[in-house]
């Protein structure tokens, strides 16, 4: 007997949640809280706010558990809820435009000249991702950070597949533009990477 796939595990847990099983709900929280935090936390650039949004996401899942359609993927459903809530949060922030603009300008400036910036590429990349426009950021996070398939990202973002591919590609180009000078300056582009690339041929 084969082990259930991740999708099947989600369905089993969801059935139990629909029947009022709180242990199943706790298991579902443990399965998705980290993944949601990674996406929503980087969308909002604030751990506290991200936690609130992720909590709200699980509350919504609980509230609407009976309306879940088993024809669809649970992960798509929960990411859609979470990202919608994150977008609402960003929309609220935009009302305070003055603070938002000054914050963005500051972060870009920091990335360019601050010598205290982390030298490790992942941290550099995390800072650069935070400066991407919202639609490119969410596409990049889902595809390259969470390593989701393009069609699933398209379903979550509710845009055509081609649009997702275009956004992801555009996000990578933007990151390359942002990171290239920094990487060259700090020699972040390690020799090992170049050697590895050379080793391919």
């Amino acid at each position, binding site marked *: 007997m084969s082990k259930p796939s991740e999708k099947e595990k989600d369905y089993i847990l969801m059935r139990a949640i629909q029947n009022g099983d*709180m242990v199943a*709900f*706790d298991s579902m*929280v*443990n399965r998705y*809280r*980290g993944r949601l*935090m*990674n996406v929503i*936390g*980087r969308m909002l650039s604030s*751990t506290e706010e*991200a*936690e609130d949004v*992720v*909590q709200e996401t*699980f*509350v919504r899942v*609980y*509230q609407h558990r009976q309306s879940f359609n088993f024809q669809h993927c649970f992960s798509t459903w929960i990411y859609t809820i979470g990202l919608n809530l994150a977008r609402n949060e960003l929309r609220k922030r935009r009302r305070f435009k003055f603070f938002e603009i000054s914050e963005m300008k500051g972060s870009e400036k920091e990335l360019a000249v601050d010598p205290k910036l982390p030298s490790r*590429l*992942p*941290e*550099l*990349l*995390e800072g650069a*991702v935070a400066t991407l426009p919202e639609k490119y950021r969410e596409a*990049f996070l889902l595809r*390259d*950070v969470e*390593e989701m398939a393009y069609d699933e990202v398209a379903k979550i973002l509710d845009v055509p597949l081609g649009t997702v*591919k275009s956004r992801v*590609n555009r996000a*990578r*180009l933007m*990151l*390359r533009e942002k*990171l*290239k000078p920094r*990487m060259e300056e700090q020699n*972040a*582009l*390690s020799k090992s*990477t*170049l050697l*590895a*690339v*050379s080793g*391919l*041929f």
Partner: protein
Amino acid sequence: MRCRKVRSLLSAACSEELDVRQYAEVMEHVASCPSCKREYAIYASIQEGAREIPDEPISDDFNTRLLGRIAEERFAETRTKAYLPKRAPKFQWRSLVPVTVVAGLLAVVTLNVYQPSQEMSSTTPTANTPIHMDDRYLTTQPSSNPNVTVAMEDSWTLNQKLARTERLGQISQRLTSNRAFVNQLTSGTMVRSQTTRPNPGQFFQTSGGVTYYIYRVNTPTSGGESGQAY
């Protein structure tokens, strides 16, 4: 493949999103072009770095707080289910049909049942109800045709009816004492009223524009022509 075309495919090549033929062409070019090789290395670093981005920290009491909120939700759901309907019931006019039919039947039955008792109550006066004389038997009929009974107006009071009866009695007496007038009547030479067409066999007299009809008054006590009602 030229550098421009290769660079547009580099990020896809790093993510293994190209088909085998395209991937082979790109890699062949990258191997022979140092600038494209450097670009490829940058994209590869971004891909690698994206996978290594540290996870966002989660507070230790995340689940506890969440389950607290869920408990509140469950409590609210239970209360709602127990005390309030989920949706307001939709009003349907069709549901009124049996009610209307039953109400109509009840109304008909009630009217039929209580009407006689109301009449009874009017004939059996109590201490509080005013006493009215029963004058329904007071009727008049033409003297020439006793079979045709003409009832007095219902709206008249007893005194009006008595006055009328008395007046008719006087006229009757006067007429019977005037032999010549009686002869005229029997010979049919009287002038008929221009305003009112009398019933067949009804006698009348005009005097000064006033029309008098001649009646024989029936009373249960006397049964004769007297103006006394009882």
